[in-house]
Structure formats: structure tokens, C-alpha cells
């Protein structure tokens, strides 16, 4: 059974058919709902913000708007690697309650945009990838490959942040 963590904000979302942006993280392929993707940029210098959890690398200036950048590997507890020329930042708009928040996620490589139909959708398997199933809304099977569809809204929930900020020993 999929791991339904009780996050007060949202119940588990189910993947819907549509276009997904596919990227690679530690050898596995993931998809994000294209409607949430704002743009893709190459890796740029990030300004570190103190007292934040390690997976929040800091903030960047995106044409005048200051947005946080999250290293997805670290968020999922996968070992961090050095950036290569393929490393990108996907700028996404995630839902936070009624508002939408812009943030960047660092991924190893961006592949393509695929169309996933309802026949290709499957429920999340029990066993899994290296990451917590809580973030996976479903699975898209295209030809022989399997793309894990990411619930990007959950990546940084408010509970994360408030828990973070109130503790005093962090960020080391």
C-alpha cells in the first residue's frame, strides 16, 4: 500500500493524463505536470540562505523575482553530486493553499515532454525507487520505460518550513 503520510494540507493526489516534463534524477526518470513548469534554466549561482535545511540551496534572481532553489537529490535523501553541464533548474509553480509559489528544483538532466494517456497510467507500485513514495502520484508506462510522476506541490510543504524554522539546531 502506498505510504499515505498525514500532511494536513492535502490528501494524496492521483496522476491525471496529460503532458509531463521528464527529467532524470540518479538514473531514474520522473515526470512533472507540464502545466506547473514555468521554464528551465541552466545552473546559476545560488545565494545561500542561512538556517535553512540542506536541501534548500538558497535563492536566485529570476528576472527580478527572488525564488528559492531546492536540490531534489538532497530532498529525497539521495547523495548529492557535482553539477555537470547537463544539470538544470526547472522553475515550477507549486500550489500552496490558494496561492501559487514559484521555486526552482535542481535535476541531473532534462529529457523531454511526453504525453501520457489514461491507458499508460498506473497506480504507484509498492516497492519503489530510491525515494519516498509519498511524493509519487502515479506511474506512466511509455514503451518499456517507466516514469515516476512527481507530486511537485508536496515537495516543499508549509509544515516542512515551519518545523524547520522553529528548531534552533539546524543547517549544520
Amino acid at each position, binding site marked *: 500500500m502506498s505510504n499515505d503520510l498525514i500532511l494536513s494540507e492535502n490528501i494524496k493526489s492521483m496522476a491525471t493524463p496529460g503532458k509531463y516534463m521528464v527529467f532524470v534524477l540518479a538514473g531514474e526518470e520522473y515526470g512533472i505536470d507540464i502545466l506547473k513548469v514555468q521554464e528551465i534554466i541552466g545552473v546559476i549561482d545560488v545565494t545561500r540562505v*542561512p*538556517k*535553512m535545511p540542506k536541501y534548500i540551496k538558497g535563492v536566485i*534572481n529570476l528576472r527580478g523575482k*527572488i525564488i528559492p532553489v531546492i536540490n531534489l537529490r538532497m530532498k529525497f535523501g539521495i547523495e548529492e553530486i557535482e553539477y555537470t553541464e547537463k544539470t538544470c533548474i526547472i522553475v515550477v509553480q507549486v500550489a500552496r493553499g490558494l496561492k501559487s*509559489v514559484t521555486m526552482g528544483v535542481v535535476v541531473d538532466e532534462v529529457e523531454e515532454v511526453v504525453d501520457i494517456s489514461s491507458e499508460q497510467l498506473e497506480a504507484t507500485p509498492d516497492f519503489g525507487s530510491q525515494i519516498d513514495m509519498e511524493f509519487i502520484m502515479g506511474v506512466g508506462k511509455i514503451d518499456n520505460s517507466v516514469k515516476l510522476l512527481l507530486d511537485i506541490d508536496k515537495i516543499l510543504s508549509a509544515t516542512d518550513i515551519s518545523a524547520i524554522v522553529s528548531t534552533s539546531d539546524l543547517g549544520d
Partner: protein
Amino acid sequence: MVEKKIVEKLDSVAQELMLIDASDLQALGLLHTEFEQLRDWASDNSYDELASLLKEGVGILGDVMLDNVDDATKSIDRASQIIATVNESITSGKMETKAKSKKQPKKTASKKKKATPPPEQEIENFDFELAGEFIYEANEHLEYSEQNLLILEKNPDDNEAVNTVFRAFHTIKGVAGFLGLIDIKDLAHEAETILDKVRKGDIYCSGEIMDVILASVDAMRQLITSLQDSVSKGQSPLQGIDQTQIITRLQNCSTGAEEAPSSVKEEKPSEPEESMPKVVVEEPESEEVIAVPEDKDKSKPAQLAKQVDRSLAQIQEFMKVDSNRLDGLIDLIGEMVITSSTIAGAPEIKGIKSVNFRKQLRQLEKITRELHEKGMSLRMVPVGPTFRKMERIVRDLAKKAGKDIEFFTHGEDTELDKTVVDRLNDPLLHIVRNAVDHGIESSGEDREKKKKHPKGRVGIHAYHKGGNIVIEVSDDGRGLDTEAILAKALEKGLISGNEQLSDKEIFNLIFEAGFSTAKKITDISGRGVGMDVVRKNIEALNGHVEIDSAYGEGSVFTIKLPLTLAVIDGVITKVGNERYIIPTLSIRESLRPKPEQISTMVNKGTTITLHNHLIPLFRVNELFDVETPPKDLTDSIVVVVDSGFRQIGLVVDELLDQQQIVIKTLEDTMQDVPGISGSTILSDGLVGLIVDVISIAKLADKI
């Protein structure tokens, strides 16, 4: 206070009462204060019945807190009832006010308007759009009228002033009639009648007449405010509010016999001036802190000249602009400034040798800068009108307290962002009230004994300094008593008693929450709620407030504000490979410490001695976990900042630059980062974080 705010306050108090637990002392305490504020509002506005009801409420809550009641729940119910009654009275518009006890001359049987109002009714086919314009203009008229009335008070022969006020009410009456606003029209008519008599010379504008006209300005304001309320809700305003009290007063005064001129407030320009005792200020500028006698010698020609200027100013055209659009425009200009300097600073661009190119580039930068300044100036308004409001308040307060006070202003033309001016109103008001209430001594004799001028002096002085505006409120009153303040602070647990505080630091303790040394709690101040709220409000504007004083001679409140909300002046510092910006307003000084200044103490950590004071040091690289090799203190820079009432020293590697910073809020995800108040984009395009000097100290405490 405005009706809408009161209604909101009543609603929130009602809600709190429903949820409260009778044993929750803290919540009861807060409610008690709210009741007191409501009671004061009621008595300030002569709603005597409401005031006594609310007074009862205050007493009830006090008893519950002290556990002097048999049935706490019942008492709280009674308190709820009181709030409900007050709320009802206000919203139904039937406020019972007791007429002030005055000798009223016999009413002659002349044809007067009947004081019985028609029952409340809506207006048919109400023109909302026209109403919007009317409200805006009416408010301008009223403000202008008030200014002129105050001038008139000092100079009763100033006929131009009377005429201006007359015309204002006349205009209001006209449009109000057209819109069907009967209440406003009626009130304006009565005011206009009495003003007409004054300008014709049939009535002499005495103290009492002045009071009544000012009262009608207030009443008119309230009508306009409730009109605004209805219009903003899309409701047609109800007519038929009971105005008997003010209308009767107006009618009586206008038909009454001429009154002997009251001598208290009138100033004779020829009065000899003594030199003002100089109050200790930390930055003695060439301009004096307290406005100099030149303001006082306002002889008639100067007044007339000012009036001519004013009428010329009226011809200047204004346009109403959607403020959102304006903000959008200014944001965009801000972006342009950043991009322009990024381009100019790029190495590839710097490498271009072409003379013509460099010329064009400089031109571009120049135009961008000017565009930026012009953009900023769009939102700027002079502080003058705010000072006018203060003048009125001082007059009313002084009268109430039975004190003889002169009020000066200097720098009315100084300009500030409109939002800042709006938000400055309340804290400034509180400070001014404080000066009148606590600062100036109660009687002329007290002052004479100290060889002071019999009239107390309160002044506001505004000027630009650096990238900021400075507003000083000074009084030549009692000054602050360090002993009393220390004692109180100890009593309230604000300090431990072990700190060695400079006089300045002691004075600024009054800004800490829960502080008040007033021996007698008056209507206006003295409940210990005020000063910390004042400071919070000013800090919310990215500003800074502090007080300096000389015991027995007077005090000065110095408020420093950035010119706009979005921009502050900041110093960019280097800590390891990172950059942090410290707002200039908070910086007292920066230095490279000498070995003999540094000392380490067991319970205080490392400190430096500066001007005979120990200032605790905090290494920013430690606070913010910046990876950097340890650096000797004598190789670093210490930036001494004001953090709350104490001063602390922040240790950084280097100071890089000082410049205007456009503040960008960190998005939702990054609110409440301890020690950081915001961010900005630096000239190389990277993000710079702005240090929050208050919360950084708290971060330090955790280490």
C-alpha cells in the same frame, strides 16, 4: 478615532469575550485595555452614556481579574452585553451625546431649521461615481478648512481664512444637495451660516465660536467617513442621522450675542523671545532642534503672502492615478536600474573602448537614474498636512490638560512616500501626545521656577539626511528621569540590573513593551501600551526611532525613515564568500577594533569598549554558518547597530559598499528566516540578503 475602526474593535472584543476563559489572566488583561481604549474614545467624543457603560465594563473586567466576583461567567456576560449595546448604538447611528454644559443664550424666535430629523431612509438613484469624487474633494476641503481655522485662531482678523472656510462649506453643501445627502447638506448649511456672519463682521470669531466651527468640521468628517463606508460597500447611504446636538450649537452660536474675545490662545507677535534651552541631541546639525523664534514672528504680511502662495498652488493640476499601476511602473523602473547597472558592470561591456559607445552608455545610465528618481517622486507627498493635523491635536490636548503650549513645525515641504506618510500618522500622533501630556509641565509656575518660558513648546522638525528623512519631535518640558526609568525597567523585568547602560540606552528603554512611568494614568497616555507600538510601527516602515533627553530641560524623539517603503539605504558587507546587507538606519558606527578595545568576559562573551561602553560582539559568520577561515578581530570590521534598546557589534570581514537597496521580499517559502529581513538584487545580478538587526540578536542568544 474613526467609526469604522471602532466597529471593528467592538466586533473583535465581542468575539474575544465569547471565547475567553475567566482564568486566563493575560487575555483578560488585554481585554481590559481594549475596554479602556473604547471608554476613552467614547468620552473623547462626548458619548457620555457609552463612556459610562464602557467604564462599567472596565471595572467588571478588573474585578474578574482580581477574582473579586462570585460568578465570573455572569460578569463576562455582562461585559458582552455592554459591548453589544455600544455596538448597536453606533451602527444604528443614534448616538446619545450629552450637550456640553455651557451657558446658552436664549433662543430668539427666528426662522431656524427644525432640529427634528426625518426618519432614516435611503437615497433613490444614488450616484456612486460622483459620490466618490465628492468624498475625495470634501476631505481636501475639510483639511484645508482646518488649517485655515487654526490660522484664524491666531489671527482673528484674517478674513481670507474665513472666506476660504466659508467657501469650503458652501461647496460641500452644494454637491451634497445634488447627491441627496441631506445630513451633510444640513450641517454644511448651519456652518455656512455662522461663517457668513463671521466674514461679514456680524459675529466676532471668539474662542467659543472657533470651538463650535472646529466641532462642525469634525462632525462633517464623520459624516463623510460613514458616507465613504457605505459607498465602499456599494450601499446607498442612509440619511436622517441625528445631528441635533451640533446643529443646535451652531444655531445658538450664530444667533447668540457677540462674545468677548478669549485671551488665552491669542499670541501677540511682538512678545519678546527668550532663547530656547538647547536640548542634548546626538547629532548637532546647523539647524536647531527646536524651531527658532523666526517662526513666531508671523506678521500679517507674511500670512497674506502664504495665502497667495496657497491659492496659486490650488491652480496646479492633479491627476488621479490608480495606485496599483503606479506601483507596477515603479517596480519596472527598479528592474531597469538593476539591469542597466548590470550591463554597465559586465566585463565584456567594460572592455569596449569606443568613445562614442561609452558616451552613450553613460547617457543611458544617467537617464535610468533620473527615471528612477522621477518614478520615486511620483509617490511622494509633503509631510505638511500631517503636521497640520498634529497642530490641531496639540491645541485640543493642551486645552484639555489646561496647559499653555505653543506648537512649531519646520520642514513642512519635506516629502515622503505617501504610504509612509499615512502610516506615520499614528506613531507621530502618539509621540506628540506624549510630549503634551507627559513632557510639558502642568503649570506655568512649575516652568517659571525652572526659568523656562511660561508657554510650553512642542515642535516638529523634518529634513532630509543621507538617503533618509529625519523627523524630530521636541519639547522643552520635564525631560526624562533615568533613575525612574531604570527602577521601572527593573520592576517590569525588562533588565536584570547587571547591565551597564548608557543614558541613551536607558532613555530608549521606554520603547520596551509594558513600560510606563506616568505617575498618574491620564486619558491619553500612560498605560504602557503606547511606545512599543510606536516603535513597531516605525520599524515596520523600515525606520528607526529613539529618544534623547536632558532632565528638567526637555526631550527629543528622533524618527528616521527611508524615503520609500521599497528602498532603504544599506551597507553591503562581506562575510567569507557571502554578502550581507545591513540597513544604514540601524548602524551607529563601524570600526576596525584595536587590541586594547577588545576584552572577553565569562558571562558576556567577547566585547569591545567604545565610548566607555561595553558592546557585545557577534560574529556574523558564526550566526549564519558561513564557511570561512577564522579571522582575527583586529583584521575584521565591527559594525555597531541598534538592536532593540541595546547596541551590539556585528563582526564582518569587510565593508564593500553603501548604496540604495531595492527591497524584495523573500517569497512565502522563506518568510521568518531568523536574522534575515529581506533580500535584494545586487549589481552583479546575485541576490543579497538583508540582515534583521533585531532578530539577529535573538539568534545570537541561542548560540
